[in-house]
């Protein structure tokens, strides 16, 4: 009896599922031509919301509300939220409704491509902290509106924040126009060099300054049991995150963005730089004598953090906050552990530099759809407000009484917003997912939580040092010029990196590297090198 019931239920379930799945399939199949509507729940939600507001505003014939709106397609990442009271307030104050649609950074490009190909272009596209990868394609197709002329007019509040140098940085297309706008950061640089001072003591050496002194210290770290755990072989004297090669390139006089640097006013692909060989040789030597981590080429993200926390790393270049984080972690194993932030390593030729935090970023773009839909004016008005003094106060400090109090005429964040960047961002402050201006004051308020330098413990102090002592050594990274051949050569560039890494780790000889690199140049890399030079020349003039 039970068996029968069971089989009946199963049959019903199967049939239902079949019908359901087929219905879904057929439905999707049918709507093939009207694809725009089908790109995800978020869009349909916001889309529906927009229509609703449109409809409700129409009967009233109210001139100033409702009709002002635009769509914004942006990248989002933790801890930012899809909607916050700050966004609501911005919309309220400007009277312009923004229909946000968010995507994770990794999926951004595929989603964007499918939007474009189904003729569903959003009014504003934002890649978060940088432009979406496909943006150059869109610009070359004439789908993005240049904003150069608005910098003095409709976007004057944004324009006032830019120096000539910033404008140059934002002009990375060869037509000399500025297309992107975005985050303006007025906060201290984020990278620093740091070294285990307790290890220095243990191996009886002074704080290194010159390249030779650094080499001597690294060798001492390697040869002696610097971390005192009884194993003289587990120390890694120097480390850096594999994704931040630029932090090492600059030791050898290449003030690079990781791939390119400007030498004598000329934009040069790093492997073409006369100093590149010196960099590779030095790293090869260091790798061979065990001064770098054996698994150097996989040290990124979490793996790098694990190394930093494991009490095996003697010195590094990386985010200044590592000095605090790793000190705290290493103290689990060694109470005396301390990463002191220090000025940049002096290279063999005396170069001493570290990249500054880039002040401006072209991450948001206005599309031709905005012009067609008549939303351009609203977009400019909205963002011009975001960059106005009022707007800056709102995005940085939130609404008075709720997020901050005014003390001595200055906004001061209230708890819990001043307790950490994560909390502040979760609650809508400093919203890097849209273009805005991030002020030093709010950065410091959250960073210090109201404490001054002397009130900090040593871990806080070293972090703070990392932010401040590098000031004289900052250089501005050149932009990455996204010429057509640059994009086309992505695989050749990838192979150049592979050659470089195999040379540094001793897998191939100098001859093999040169031969391989020549082959890549013949395949098209030469073309890219020339193209990017030309593009920079045009831009700089």
């Amino acid at each position, binding site marked *: 009896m039970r068996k029968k019931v069971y089989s009946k239920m199963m049959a019903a379930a199967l049939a239902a599922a079949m019908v359901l799945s087929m219905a879904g399939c057929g439905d999707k199949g049918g709507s093939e031509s009207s694809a725009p509507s089908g790109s995800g729940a978020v869009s349909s939600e916001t889309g529906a919301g927009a229509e609703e507001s449109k409809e409700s505003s129409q009967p009233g014939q109210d001139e100033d509300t409702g009709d002002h709106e635009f769509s914004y397609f942006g990248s989002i990442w933790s801890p930012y939220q899809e909607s916050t009271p700050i966004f609501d307030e911005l919309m309220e104050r400007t009277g312009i409704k923004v229909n946000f649609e968010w995507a994770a950074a990794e999926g951004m490009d595929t989603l964007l491509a499918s939007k*474009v190909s189904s003729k569903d272009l959003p009014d504003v596209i934002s890649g978060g902290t940088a432009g979406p990868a496909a943006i150059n394609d869109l610009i070359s197709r004439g789908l993005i509106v240049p904003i150069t002329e608005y910098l003095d007019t409709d976007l004057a509040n944004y324009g006032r924040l830019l120096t000539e140098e910033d404008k140059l940085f934002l002009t990375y297309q060869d037509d000399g126009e500025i297309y992107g706008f975005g985050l303006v950061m007025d906060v201290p640089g984020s990278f620093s060099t740091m070294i285990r001072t307790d290890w220095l003591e243990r191996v009886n050496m002074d704080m290194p300054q010159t390249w030779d002194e650094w080499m001597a210290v690294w060798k001492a770290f390697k040869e002696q049991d610097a971390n005192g755990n009884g194993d003289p072989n587990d120390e890694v004297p120097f480390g850096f995150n594999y994704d931040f090669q630029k932090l090492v390139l600059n030791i050898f006089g290449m003030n690079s963005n990781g791939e390119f640097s400007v030498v004598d006013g000329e934009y040069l692909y790093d492997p073409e730089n006369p100093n590149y060989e010196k960099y590779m040789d030095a790293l090869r030597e260091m790798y061979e004598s065990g001064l770098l981590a054996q698994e*150097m080429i996989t040290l990124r993200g979490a793996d790098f953090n694990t190394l930093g926390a*494991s009490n095996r790393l003697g010195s590094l270049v990386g985010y200044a906050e590592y000095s605090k984080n790793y000190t705290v972690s290493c103290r689990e194993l060694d109470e005396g552990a301390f990463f002191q932030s220090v000025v940049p390593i002096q290279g063999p030729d005396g170069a001493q530099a570290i990249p500054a935090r880039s002040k401006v970023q072209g991450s948001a773009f206005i599309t031709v759809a905005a012009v067609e839909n008549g939303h351009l004016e609203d977009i400019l008005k909205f963002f011009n407000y975001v960059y106005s003094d009022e707007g800056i106060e709102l995005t940085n400090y939130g609404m008075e009484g709720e997020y901050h109090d005014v003390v001595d005429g200055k906004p001061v964040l209230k708890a819990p917003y001043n307790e950490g960047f994560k909390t502040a961002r979760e609650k809508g402050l400093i919203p890097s997912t849209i273009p805005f201006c991030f002020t030093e004051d709010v950065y410091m308020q959250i960073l210090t939580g109201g404490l001054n330098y002397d009130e900090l413990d040593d871990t806080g102090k070293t972090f703070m040092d990392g932010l401040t002592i590098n000031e004289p050594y900052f250089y501005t990274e050149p932009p990455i010029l996204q010429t057509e051949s640059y994009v086309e050569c992505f*695989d050749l560039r*990838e192979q150049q990196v592979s050659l470089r890494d195999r040379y540094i780790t001793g897998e191939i000889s100098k001859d093999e590297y040169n031969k391989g690199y020549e082959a890549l140049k013949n395949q098209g890399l030469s073309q890219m090198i020339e193209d990017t030079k030309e593009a920079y020349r045009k831009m700089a003039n």
Partner: protein
Amino acid sequence: MKGREKVPRIPQKNLWKRIWRAKYIYLMILPVIVWFLLFQYWPMTWLSIAFFDYDLYQGLSGSVFVGLKNFVKFFTGLDFWRLIRNVLLMNLYALAVGFPMPIIFALFLNEFRTRKVKKFVQTVSFLPHFISMVAFVTIVTEFLSPSTGVLAQIFRFFGKEPIFFLGKAKYFRSIMVFSGVWQEMGYSAIIYLSALTAIDVNLYEAAMADGANRWKRLIHITLPGIMPTVVVMFILRVGSLINANFEKIFLFQNSMNLEVSEVIQTWVYKRGMIKYDYSLATAAGLFNGVVALVLVIMANRFSKRYSDSAGIW
């Protein structure tokens, strides 16, 4: 298909009648056909973009027909022979090592007299098959890590400097193959185990009566008994020679092993999904598909020749 009875030829007149009688069956397979058309056959038609310079924003109608240009570009590119070499070497290595291991393992399990132990070992050996590739790659990376890995510990125990296996191109294929053995050995052994149970017990009895020892029984009865299965499996394996384990290779790829780890599928992925060169990527994908098809057809021929019963389709 085998086992289907031949329907006697029926005059045309009855055809419509029979079709009408089967109307509910057609109704039943209709959604299935729709699904196959939408998700299997429609994509095949999109292979045509290999012959166009496909414009992402304009669609096929706005794209320029370029004939075989993409194929020429793919075949003459710097990468082509490297890709072919990598795919072939990787698969031949996997065939040489990965293929015999499950057979040996099945024979090993078969020798157990204690059923509980056999069952336990078998259950454990299945386990890695159900681990996702992402988890698998993490586990292998941790295992091979020169600083924290188990292997490094063993090296140190014997006073040797640990090797950074994942950072050396020469070890890449071995890592792929042996980690593959770890993951799939137990699962792949199932088929041989069931072939083993089908061997006539009387053969063993007779051999034992003749005084054949265990080894002799293994060589003269067990091995010949599973040989047909082995041959069929071997041919199947050859048929999939060009299809590298894409997900795994992709997740293990790094700048040090790029030279040996780039295979057609990873190349297609990068060209297509990262650089949006759909046409070139599809041309390469089409090449891959055609070679796979030819291999499968050849494999099927051979398997039919080997035994009349074991055609793959």
